[in-house]
């Protein structure tokens, strides 16, 4: 293989002075639109990226945040023994026929998991699903057995995707799943349970500052954890399958379980006292916490790590994160203005920030499925099965929606110093490789070995290329669809070897031309298809493909 390193166009080294949040004024072309959409959505197709180029940066940012109706809820795709839910109907507000019915719970859970993947699959230019996942990572849950609880939880996140962070924190504090996950439902006057109060401060809102003495984390103290647990006492979820299978799901305030005494916070919160406010007390507490500007900085940093980079330069800390925090404060914790400013900024489009993000498993999968247009079957039961298959793939790579491994989220978004790099290791690498190879070479069977095979129609994609008879164009345009940055001539030459081993370019022109003239000749089509599959499979196995 030749090892030439000439690039199609030069990549600049990071500038000495980093750009800030001033509006982006550079070119708006495929490269920039792809960068924006790959970070804010899952697996944008070439058509969608081109649409963004045509409509311009400002309109694209607007569209990312366009209000959408809430999606239709998940349905019962095929289970014929749920007395409360017919096939094709939604189960999200339907009780169970008995406590903990294993089959009813299982089909509903699969339906929810599949449907959640479906939301990301179906979405085009909207940031909602990426933000929903962001919040899921931020306010995680795991091991909630009742799918109705999980549906309610994820719907709350989705509804607040770019809404008000303070309101979301309030809603999540008494969300039935969260009440179970962090034992809020066990927190009573008689038996305080501080689990939620601690994480609310440390991981959800204000974060820990430097240690400033015993039990004092600068932003709050151990004393605050205790007092806030008292504030939060008295909330319970109801409707759990094991106890009240036919009840609806919700949370309620039990005055007799609430600690009605006066709570006094530490000097970190100005020694503020909170007197009994009953069922409004939790909401008041969130307001008190959000009076601290550190909350804005904390969430701005989390957003930066999610959308830009885990390495935060000093300049970025002040000029970008600090500035985003100020926008959040000025807008009473509305998320949208801060994010829109970020995505329209010089900083976001700085060459320094491009192509550096190792895709998480869901992003990895959808950046194969969507850009390569792997078509999914239309019948509801088959479509749910196909979505569920994607869920299973992500699960294999250790990213399961609704099963966040730690209360701090997936470690790729908090654990120093590796962050995103934690997705990649000797266990997950071969799985990524196997899945991408299966999808391209064999297709996969979403419905067992006898079902239809799903795989991308690569010949169909090539037909949309500017000049499919030129092998260099075929490689360039697939690279444009799949890879974050230009590749070297050496890499292109190696890929071309897979299309026309040891042959001059015109051999491809001949072969493709012959196929194009006789598209119904399956021998000709298969010969081309096989070559292209191997080339695309190889492109997906390149380390470059793992980056976004």
């Amino acid at each position, binding site marked *: 293989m030749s090892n030439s390193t000439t690039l199609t166009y030069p990549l600049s080294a*990071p500038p000495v002075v980093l750009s800030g949040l001033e509006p982006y004024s550079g070119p708006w072309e495929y490269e920039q639109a792809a960068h924006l959409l790959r970070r804010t959505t899952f697996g944008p197709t070439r058509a969608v990226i081109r649409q963004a180029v045509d409509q311009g940066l400002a309109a694209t940012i607007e569209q990312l945040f366009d209000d959408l109706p809430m999606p239709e809820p998940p349905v019962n795709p095929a289970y014929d023994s749920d007395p409360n839910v017919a096939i094709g109907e939604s189960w999200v507000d339907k009780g169970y026929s008995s406590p903990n019915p294993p089959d009813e719970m299982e089909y509903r859970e699969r339906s929810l998991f599949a449907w959640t993947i479906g939301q990301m699959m179906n979405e085009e230019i909207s940031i909602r699903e990426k933000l929903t996942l962001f919040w899921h990572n931020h306010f995680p849950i795991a091991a909630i057995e009742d799918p109705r609880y999980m549906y309610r939880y994820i719907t709350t996140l989705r509804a607040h995707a770019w809404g008000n962070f303070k309101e979301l924190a309030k809603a999540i504090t008494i969300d039935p799943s969260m009440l179970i996950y962090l034992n809020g439902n066990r927190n009573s006057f*008689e038996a305080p*349970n501080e689990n939620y109060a601690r994480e609310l401060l440390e991981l959800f809102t204000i974060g820990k500052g430097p240690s400033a003495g*015993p039990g004092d984390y600068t932003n709050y103290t151990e004393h605050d954890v205790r007092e806030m647990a008292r504030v939060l006492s008295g909330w319970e979820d109801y409707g759990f399958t094991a106890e009240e299978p036919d009840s609806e799901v919700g949370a309620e305030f039990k005055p007799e379980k609430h600690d009605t005494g006066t709570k006094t916070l530490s000097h970190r919160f100005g020694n503020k006292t909170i007197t009994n406010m009953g069922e409004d007390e939790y909401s008041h507490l969130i307001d008190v916490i959000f009076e601290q500007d550190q909350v804005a900085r904390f969430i701005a940093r989390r957003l930066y790590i999610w959308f830009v980079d885990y390495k935060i330069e000093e300049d970025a800390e002040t000029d970008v994160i600090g500035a985003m925090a100020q926008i959040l404060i000025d807008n009473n914790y509305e998320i949208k203005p801060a994010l829109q400013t970020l995505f329209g900024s010089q900083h976001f489009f700085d060459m320094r920030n491009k*192509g550096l993000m190792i895709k998480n498993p869901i992003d990895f999968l959808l950046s194969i499925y969507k850009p390569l247009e792997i078509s999914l079957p239309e019948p509801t039961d088959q479509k749910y099965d196909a979505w569920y298959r994607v869920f299973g793939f992500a699960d294999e790579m250790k990213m399961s929606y609704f099963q966040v491994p730690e209360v701090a989220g997936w470690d790729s978004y908090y654990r120093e110093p590796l962050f995103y790099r*934690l997705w990649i*290791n000797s266990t997950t690498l071969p799985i990524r490789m196997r899945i991408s190879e299966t999808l391209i070479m064999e297709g996969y069977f979403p419905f067992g070995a006898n079902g239809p095979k799903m795989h991308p129609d690569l010949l169909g994609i090539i037909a949309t290329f500017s000049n499919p008879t030129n092998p260099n164009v075929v490689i360039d345009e697939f690279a444009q669809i799949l890879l974050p940055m230009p590749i070297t001539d050496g890499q292109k030459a190696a890929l071309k070897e897979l299309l026309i081993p040891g042959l001059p370019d015109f051999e491809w022109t001949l072969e493709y031309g012959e196929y194009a003239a006789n598209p119904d000749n399956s021998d000709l089509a298969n010969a081309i298809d096989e070559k292209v599959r191997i080339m695309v499979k190889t492109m997906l196995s390149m380390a470059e493909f793992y980056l976004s």
Partner: protein
Amino acid sequence: MKRRQFIRNAGAAVSIPMLLNGFRLSALSKPLLFNGVNDETDRVLVLIQLNGGNDGLNMVLPLDQYASLHIARPNIIIPESAALQITDTVGLHPEMTGMNSLYHQGKLEVIQSVGYPNQNRSHFRSMEIFSTGSPADEFWNTGWMGRYFDDNYPGFPEGYPSGENPDPFAITMGYSVSATCQGQAANFSMTLNDPFNLSQIPENDGSEILDTRYGEELAYLLAIIRQTNRYSERIELAANNGHNMAQYPSTGLARQLKNIALLISGGLQTKVYVASLGGFDTHAGQVEDGDPTSGSHAELLKTLSDAVKAFQDDLQAQGLEERVIGMTFSEFGRQIRSNESLGTDHGTAAPLIMFGSCVKPQVYGDNPEIPFNVDVQEALPMQNDFRDVYGSILMDWFGVPESDVRTMMHPEFTPLPIVSCSLISDTRSPETDDGLAVRNFPNPFQDWSTIAFTSPKEDWVRLSVFDAFGSEVAELVNKKLSAGEHEVRFEGRNLPAGSYYYRLMIGNTQKTKLMIKAR
């Protein structure tokens, strides 16, 4: 016979039998581990990470503290009659039959009340501290084993694997590399699930690594792909060479340990393996209502104990016992008082368990003293600093000189007599943990109390006082003192009433005692 592989190089250096017979290796100028000729006799450390914060008080039962414990945790306490008694005053949870028999075979060690000053009660932060070995108020980016590897294999991952070091230095079983093995530039551990199902990853040439963030991440990916392939070849080889010679239970932890034994048996030169078991965050339902010997914590301890027993039996059957020691650790113990949900909340110090034929079969340290009036949120005071435990392993098991351990762990590192088969000549006094005479008066006290102790010889003395939440409230002594009697006055005038603990260290022995400030 499998052993043959390990003594293949024996002619070139110290042979295994000499090691096994207790041959003193301190004469070697360089630790055996790094002279490159005797790698296959190298020593292995198996870490078992108990995720969630293990309730040590229901695992290692302080039988002489039961009067107070019955008051503090009436709904979850393990009945005294059910305890598996290993000493006069210490019992194990009734599900820990495997570890109980290991103790009686001289292959199990309990280290009491391991923690650190000002213990942090967040999972995330405390596991980070336990993995990095940092003080509670500092953020370190490298793991404690990672620093040891960094010292000996500078430049990693650049240039590895190499002819001299063909195998991964560490392996984390599972999907996520262990933070204990994080080095300056990369993590020294690779992840592994199934040693028989490793596939080669295509290594596509031609990438250009630019001096950009993109280039940085791309270079990392390429390095990991290449390294994974090279290491995978070695692992597969070892897996095919190795054997298991014991029956393992069918739990996830047992499967991890079984694979570890297989790779050790197959001759892999990996020095550290990390296994893990999750589910210890038992805020609720730790025990079953009305039957405190069963419940989720009981199941976890059974899983742990049975898996370790099978692993040790396997090593014994294959004659590998002298090469391997193991240790459990968790981010914190739990509070002394149970909650109303049949669970316990985040606490501080907890016992840690070591296993292998080269650990000292003992209960190291005293039972924690449980006061009659346990405060809300009160947890166990630290008796043994976890960095001393780690450091002693580095020193005795891996032959790292004490001065280097100080640099890697903490300046006040104190070697503990917890590992036998030491590679370092042992200048420490034999176990004298009952030898420290220390008391305070008055007790309970109003404004102050005098702490009196006897130092058997001239030695470095440290005396600190902690409150019931594990925060250090005073350092009373930290200097060399002459042999004989000493008295130090502790001023507690401005402190709230409640339990306090003072921890005395003289040389490498220590004692932690309770005193009460009257209400």
